[in-house]
């Protein structure tokens, strides 16, 4: 049965290898150079502020960073579509299950071998991609601009061990839909729809609550103030970023300005209104313009008045905890679907 599984699988295995091996080779060749560029750049900017170096370094490699991230994001889905969905559906479609089920081997064993071998290949392919990319992009992950940090949903799903869980789940989902729909194309369509929906729902609805998020109030600081402006009429507007001072790389779930009484500050398109004088005091236009300094003085005044950034966030230190929890969730879903596949094939299919 191992031979037959391999014989049926080898063409798609060859195709996948043809795509992944060159990618792995390119990553292996360019990775050390990238890491040493990063180390050199970091040494030359330290101990001063390295933000400019980070921005330059990340921007220079942003295209490749996006490309490899997308590869890791789509591999599990492709595995589910092209390895999972046809695994049983194609047999049912062409009637060959009637041929193979009449060999001297139970259906349970047939399915077990097929699921194990092809499933292991699926998980290995996704795991190889993810680990290669995680290793290669480590310097970029450390210098990423907001929105592309490790904890941000698009990057989180393309690093570490979660892609293994996704691949296992997508594969078994494809198999299960195949036993249910009995047709390859509908099975592929449904697999894609369910998997994509879950991949969107996970970061939006589920992942933020896997561990209780931290809620805290922070003083305003250039790190969390995105924009400060004074409209011609009325009070100055402050908009706060999806970042919290002192916790670089945190996944900020909500961030807003609260006024001295602790209520959310009145907010419009330009930002939240802050009741501070702009004609005199620290927030008045300085007589001698000095870059950066006047903003900081003004923010100190706003902080003194009692305005704060109220944020809920998941600190970066929880990255691996989240990786393990999410992988575990997908592993449980995978086991459930595997059970369903066996039940379908043993009891319902013929």
């Amino acid at each position, binding site marked *: *049965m191992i*031979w*037959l599984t391999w*014989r*049926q699988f080898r*063409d798609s295995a060859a195709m996948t290898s043809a795509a992944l091996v060159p990618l792995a080779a390119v990553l292996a060749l360019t990775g050390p150079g990238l890491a040493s560029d990063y180390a050199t750049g970091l040494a030359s900017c330290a101990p001063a502020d390295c933000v400019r170096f980070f921005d330059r370094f990340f921007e220079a490699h942003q295209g490749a960073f996006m490309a490899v991230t997308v590869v890791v994001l789509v591999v599990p889905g492709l595995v589910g579509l092209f390895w999972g969905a046809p695994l049983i559906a194609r047999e049912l479609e*062409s*009637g*060959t299950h*009637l*041929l*193979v*089920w*009449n*060999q*001297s*081997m*139970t259906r349970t*064993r047939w399915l077990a071998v097929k699921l194990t071998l092809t499933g292991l290949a699926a998980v290995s392919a996704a795991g190889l991609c993810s680990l290669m990319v995680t290793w290669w992009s480590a310097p970029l992950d450390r210098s990423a601009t907001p929105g592309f940090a490790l904890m941000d949903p698009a990057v989180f799903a393309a690093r570490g061990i979660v892609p293994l869980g996704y691949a296992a789940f997508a594969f078994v989902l494809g198999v299960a839909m195949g036993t249910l729909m009995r047709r390859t194309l509908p099975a592929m369509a449904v697999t894609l729809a369910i998997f994509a929906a879950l991949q969107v729902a996970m970061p939006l609805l589920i992942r933020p609550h896997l561990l209780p998020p931290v809620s805290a109030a922070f003083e305003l600081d250039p790190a969390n103030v995105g924009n400060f402006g004074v409209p011609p009429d009325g009070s100055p507007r402050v908009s706060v970023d999806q970042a919290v001072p002192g916790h670089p790389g945190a996944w900020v779930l909500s961030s807003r300005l609260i006024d001295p009484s602790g209520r959310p500050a009145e907010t419009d398109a330009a930002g939240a209104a802050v009741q501070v004088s702009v004609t005199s005091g620290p927030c008045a236009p300085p007589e001698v313009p000095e870059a950066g300094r006047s903003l900081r003085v003004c923010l100190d005044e706003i902080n003194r008045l009692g305005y704060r950034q109220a944020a809920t966030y998941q600190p970066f230190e929880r990255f691996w905890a989240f990786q393990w929890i999410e992988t575990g969730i997908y592993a449980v879903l995978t086991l459930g679907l595997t059970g369903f596949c066996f039940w379908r094939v043993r*009891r319902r299919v*013929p």
Partner: protein
Amino acid sequence: MNGTAVLQARGLGRKYGRRWALRDCTLDLPAGHVVGLVGPNGAGKTTLLKLAAGWLAPSSGGISVLGGSPAGGPAQLAKIGFVAQDTPVYPGLTVADHLRLGARLNPGWDAALARERIARLDLDPAHRAGKLSGGQRAQLALTLGLAKRPRLLLLDEPVAALDPLARREFLQTLMEAVAELDLSVVLSSHLVSDLERTCDHLIVLVDSRLQVAGEVDDLLATHHRLTGPRRDPGRLPAGQDVVSAHHTDRQSTIIVRTDTPILDPA
């Protein structure tokens, strides 16, 4: 094992949803026969064969095949060969791959028999099965079914999709194999003409019920078609069971089952 039953069914029935595909089927098939399973499409032939192969579980009653419960495990599977409707094969695999598949998955695989049959059929082992003609595909499926050396071979409408020539060749090779290999065969068809030359035992299924089962010779000797002026089938002599009756304005055609000679030819 000759003489004992290869297949025993007691009140066997199978439902799909609320519809009975087969019901109240009580049957004993003796070993060493070629059994024809006839009936119109949808009469339950495939259902009966799938129950015998263990692919379906009965909804009522019981069935035992070669003394064991169907789908009782690999040993039971090894005893039964099944050539499914439309004789499916893997289109992407070569003829040689199919033989290898059989060899890997069947402990009792008869490699010499398989090779010899493929050679006799003039099939190129390197040929992809998807490129074979319908007749060749059926022969390949039959080869797989025979080379696992089952004691009972079930064939579900194996020739339905074949042209008349391929049909004859297929049935002929099947008969040769039966003679060589000492196995029992159940062969289903919706055409009696496919079976009349090959079968010595007949099962007739109509509307998911068993109508007739027995030796072909006995059936022919005890069933008569009576044609004559129109008459009431109820007034036939005692001992003649009416199987079916058709009437025109002037004529009646009645099929009866009786052990006694027909005395009134009118």
